[in-house]
């Protein structure tokens, strides 16, 4: 059905009116206009209208989110600016329980009168659907937190950086690529600011200011004579930061055959280095299919973690709530409750963590007012927990939510979404060089590429950006046409070790899709470089 899972941010060249993936309600604004958020007292007064109206109409529980969502896109190709757009989306979403059933309504009209009407609509939806409801909604307790707030710990707000500075940086990036022999380059900076006010009948009033940023480029090289083309993308990743991510620091660079970056990104150095790799990639030897040991850089492994660990441990999938869309999970309640299911081997320790600094999933409180936390999903290879919201907690014997509720905007209903899910670094000292020198026949994969996994998360296939052949402990050159296929449990049980924490980095995505109608979630996945033994590698070259 449609483009499930990752929702693409597609081409940005068609003028701002055509900008993709913008909320239909988004209105474009002057860059600095929306920086002064609405007064908290006013938001509280409006929120109380929603809560009181819902209760007076018969709701046993209500929560309200008043959200202002700012996006800025600056997109370029070669020497041209394709689009500069600032958007703002402002509105209110109200969720209620009435007659034991959820109801939700949203509106872009945020006056007291309109909020009251929206609250009434939410209660009416709940009551209309109560006749086809199964058992009544059961919420895990959450004590009221009073008036609290949280802000992303940013150092430089991207929305305060002049557009000119961003355009110049991107065009300079493009210039370096073209001078280095690229045929084409697309580059962009995408900045997000979510200003969210949450209130519930539990007595919480939560004001949050959340930032994310994703600078990126994609280089294409054409060989006209052969008709071949190839691409390589930036080593950047979306982060829960702001323009500070684009201010390089020497200590954030990770050396190696390709420089990679921790929480500071040097786009100009990266484009120079990566452009030089495209030629090498085009001329690389086509891979021999078969069993290989794969050494996976965190810029690649984040996506494998996302698909094969993050999604199957989502409790809504385990229970069947996503059966019609994203699918269910091979990780059943029985397997988790047994505390004996070998998800992976002893090297595999995986945590869910919504507190991690600079990560995409870090917030103070989730979208149903639960303070964020960190917990184990897989401990020394054993599956020990899932990801739950307030209405699911009782189904796995928890008496409190794990804080996994999120809605992509005020217009959409909140539901269970993935927290940051990360592989813990190895406890023993091990560098990437140490790991590679013990590999006899292997492929070192950097960057994420093509990805696909079945609806219960058993069988997956992943590509990458750069593939280096390892022969008897040494990197001997690049390979191409590489993808690996495996089964989730076999793969994590074939883990041959994880490098130590000095190599630990985050990867992630702005646009993880789930739900109907589909919603995006931003999430990070951290790891150090890890080795997996005897993985099935296929050759993806074809002739048409």
């Amino acid at each position, binding site marked *: 059905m449609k483009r499930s899972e990752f929702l693409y941010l597609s081409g940005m060249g068609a003028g*701002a009116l055509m900008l993709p993936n913008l909320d239909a309600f988004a209105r474009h604004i002057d860059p600095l206009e929306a920086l002064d958020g609405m007064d908290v007292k006013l938001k509280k007064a409006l929120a109380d209208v929603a809560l009181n109206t819902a209760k007076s109409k018969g709701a046993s529980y209500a929560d309200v989110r008043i959200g202002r969502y700012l996006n800025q896109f600056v997109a370029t190709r070669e020497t041209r600016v394709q689009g500069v757009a600032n958007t703002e989306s402002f509105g209110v979403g109200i969720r209620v329980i009435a007659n034991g059933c959820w109801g939700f309504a949203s509106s872009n009209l945020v006056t007291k009168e309109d909020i009251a009407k929206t609250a009434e609509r939410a209660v009416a939806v709940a009551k209309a659907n109560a006749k*086809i409801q199964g058992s009544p909604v059961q919420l895990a307790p959450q004590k009221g937190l009073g008036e609290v707030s949280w802000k992303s710990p940013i150092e430089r707000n991207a929305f305060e950086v002049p557009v000119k500075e961003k355009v110049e940086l991107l065009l300079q990036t493009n210039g370096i690529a073209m001078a280095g022999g690229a045929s084409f380059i697309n580059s962009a900076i995408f900045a997000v600011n979510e200003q969210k006010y949450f209130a519930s009948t539990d007595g919480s009033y939560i004001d949050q200011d959340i930032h994310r940023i994703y600078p990126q480029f994609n280089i294409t090289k054409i060989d006209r004579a052969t008709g071949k083309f190839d691409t390589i993308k930036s080593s950047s990743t979306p982060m829960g930061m702001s323009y500070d991510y684009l201010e390089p620091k020497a200590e954030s660079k990770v050396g190696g055959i390709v420089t990679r970056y921790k929480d500071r990104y040097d786009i100009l150095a990266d484009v120079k280095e990566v452009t030089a790799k495209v030629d090498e990639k085009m001329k690389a030897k086509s891979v021999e299919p078969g069993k290989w040991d794969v050494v996976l850089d965190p810029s690649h492994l984040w996506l494998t973690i996302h698909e094969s660990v993050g999604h199957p441990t989502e409790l809504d999938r385990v229970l069947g709530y996503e059966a019609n869309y994203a699918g269910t999970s091979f990780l059943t309640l029985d397997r988790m409750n047994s505390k004996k299911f070998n998800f992976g081997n002893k090297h595999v320790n995986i945590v869910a963590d919504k507190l991690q600094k600079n990560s995409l999933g870090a917030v103070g409180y989730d979208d149903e007012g639960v303070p964020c936390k960190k917990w184990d999903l897989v401990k020394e290879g054993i599956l020990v927990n899932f990801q739950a919201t307030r209405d699911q907690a009782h189904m796995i014997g928890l008496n409190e939510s794990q804080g996994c509720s999120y809605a992509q905007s005020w217009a959409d209903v909140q539901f269970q979404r993935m927290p940051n899910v990360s592989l813990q670094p190895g406890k023993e000292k091990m560098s990437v060089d140490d790991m590679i020198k013990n590999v006899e026949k292997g492929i070192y994969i950097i960057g994420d590429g*093509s990805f696909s996994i079945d609806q219960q998360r058993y069988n997956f296939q992943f590509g990458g950006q750069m593939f280096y052949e390892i022969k008897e402990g040494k990197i001997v050159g690049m390979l191409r046409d590489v993808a690996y296929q495996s089964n989730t449990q076999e793969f994590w049980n074939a883990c041959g070790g994880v490098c130590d924490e000095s190599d630990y980095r985050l990867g992630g995505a702005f646009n993880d899709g789930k739900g109907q109608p589909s919603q995006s979630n931003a999430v990070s996945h951290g790891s150090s470089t890890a080795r997996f033994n005897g993985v099935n590698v296929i050759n993806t070259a074809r002739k048409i």
Partner: protein
Amino acid sequence: MAILTKEQAQAILKKALSYSKAEECEVSLQGSEGGNIRYARNAVSTAGDISTMSLGVSSTFAKKTGTATINEFDDASLEKVIRRSEELAQLAPANPEYVSLEGPKTFQEAKTYNATTAAVNPDIRADAVLKSLNVAKEAKLEAAGFLENTTGFRAIMNSKGLFAYNTNTDVSFSVTTRNQAGTGSGYVEQSYNDVSKLDTLALTKIAAGKANGSAGARAIEPGKYTVILEPLAVSGMLSYMFNGFDARSAEEGRNFMSKKGGGTRLNEQLFGENINIYSDPFNPDLPGNTWSGDGLPLERTQWVEKGVVKNLAYSRYWAGQKGVKPLPGTNRPIFTGGTASLEDLIKSTEKGILVTRFWYIRMVDPQTVLLTGLTRDGTFYIENGKIAFPVKNFRFNESPIIMLNNVEAMGKPQRSENMMVPPMKIRDFTFSSLSDAV
């Protein structure tokens, strides 16, 4: 009220344009009303009601364009949004690819609005879902589904005198039914312009049949097989191909339509001789708008004839560069197909695999449009013209370009997502591994 009449829309757009001081200005107005019900574990899980309208403005001075949108419509707000777009235009750098706006045109009226669909309310939705739930409960299956209806309008106007208006309705329904043991799963998905064609009871019965029929699947070796792809599987494979029908990226050398040595594969035999693809906004089963967002008419266009590529899309800028007429892209493609039923295709197959649909399809290599993905919700082995037994799901690695050279027979086209495609019988389809997923 989010659905405006032509006159109401025209009045707002005229008023907005009256405030413009730009060299060129275009305004667009769109609104929609709709609702949805989501259900799972045989009960409703979430439901929502959304109503919205927004106005977009692009103002241009000396190829410098600024865009702003707003969702308030009083005179002060209209003037504010125009001024804001003009201010942004002055901040933006000149775009050498800017093309002056289209002048006035007459567009044919689209057939995209259906009054019955527009009248769907929460009770009608709840009743339709109740029918689906009852089928699942009677069959002792667990149902998860989604029903959504929308009614919308869209209008554009510009400072050169162009005006266009359109209304549309759509309803979409999908349901997955699974058996209690989790060993069988079935799925069905249909969208209609006209809700009176929607029969949630009959559709859920199809899904239930597949769920029961797919239980106890056997593992067979992956490899090359003759497959019969149902329309959902066909549209899934083809959705990745149509991006390639773009003249600019083909001429730039970066898609599968690019030719060795330069140029494109326009007028080349890229597919089998039995492949004919066109688009037509007046197709009664897949009606579409008659104008594009940049003011071009959308007309019947032949994209592939007897396997030969007959047209590539040209943006207004690229058409100007190349001295050709602009042509909007392959919106809502239609396959000519054949007359056989799905049953006929199965009957004609000695050994093969019937695929209900594919899942998680992704591009592996844009050079060849090599895709990967998996079968889902009903995969069956065919022997001597009959469905013999269910088989475990496969991962495939296949290109739709190769696939459309291997089509042995086609059935009658039907709407699948936003395409009209037939069920297809295809030889040598490549399955690369097995999946335990149900």
